[in-house]
């Protein structure tokens, strides 16, 4: 049953991911990305990580998506700006490259003995009590604040720097107002 859920949501995940990267209008991409995040959270649940499933919905489905949709609203791109004018050769090359990457990854997965040995164990099957605890919030909290306290602190510093950077980058200075007042300033050409 669990495996079936994983398979179905996996297929839907792949489909929604494909739609995210192919839709022309980024608003559709954003909505499909929410669907993708929710399906990922379902797969986290199947893999017995309930805490991460909740965090996935909160952080990705909530915070990050709000950021994306907010920026979409602020930019307010016109029909003409949304036209990406990607030449078909570039798309073909990108497609070939990513298919090649997938084939390489699949080959690596297929030829690894340790991963193939896992084929005999059911990831969704019942586990020993001590093992099942690993995904629990209490255990994660204990590990996070004892064994992994250093990476945790570094992450907090990183987020602090990111906040400062984001505020600094989006702050409007007076010079910027003057520049944007001119109609559609193009990038200087003298760099060529």
């Amino acid at each position: 049953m669990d495996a079936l859920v994983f398979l179905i949501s996996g297929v839907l995940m792949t489909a929604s991911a494909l739609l995210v990267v192919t839709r022309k209008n980024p608003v559709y991409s954003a909505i499909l990305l929410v669907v993708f995040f929710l399906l990922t959270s379902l797969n986290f649940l199947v893999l017995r990580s309930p805490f991460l499933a909740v965090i996935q919905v909160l952080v990705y489905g909530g915070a990050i998506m709000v950021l994306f949709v907010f920026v979409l609203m602020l930019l307010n791109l016109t029909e003409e700006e949304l036209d990406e004018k990607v030449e078909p050769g570039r798309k073909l090359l990108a497609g070939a490259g990513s298919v090649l990457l997938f084939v390489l990854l699949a080959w690596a997965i297929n030829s690894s003995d340790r991963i193939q040995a896992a084929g005999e164990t059911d990831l969704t099957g019942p586990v020993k009590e001590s093992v099942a605890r690993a995904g629990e919030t209490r255990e994660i909290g204990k590990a996070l604040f004892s064994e992994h306290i250093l990476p945790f602190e570094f992450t907090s510093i990183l987020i602090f720097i990111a906040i400062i950077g984001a505020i600094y980058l989006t702050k409007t200075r007076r010079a910027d107002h003057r520049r944007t007042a001119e109609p559609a300033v193009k990038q200087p050409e003298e760099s060529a």
Partner: protein
Amino acid sequence: MTLSLDLCLYLCAAVFSIGVYGVLSRQNIIVILMSLELMLNGVNLAIISFGRYFITPEGSALSGTGASSSQIFVIIVLAIAAAEAAVGLAILLAVYRRWRSARVSDMRLLKG
């Protein structure tokens, strides 16, 4: 019907490759950032499946650390993804204000 590790990893590889395709083929910076999130999600799922498989009652068989290590990894990746999205979108806003364009090929000031 059993769910094996290689099945999970195939899904992760597929999601990651789709993200790579998005980054390579699109021109709109917002969609490129979304594709980056797709790639990070594929990696997260891979970490969780590895942690789920390489687990012993004493802890993780991979690194000799506690059993919850894979979960901690994913939490940190998540935090970094959030920071990356915030800074990336801030750069996009600054660039758009300056040049009125959200296309990557219009940003060639740093091109050699």
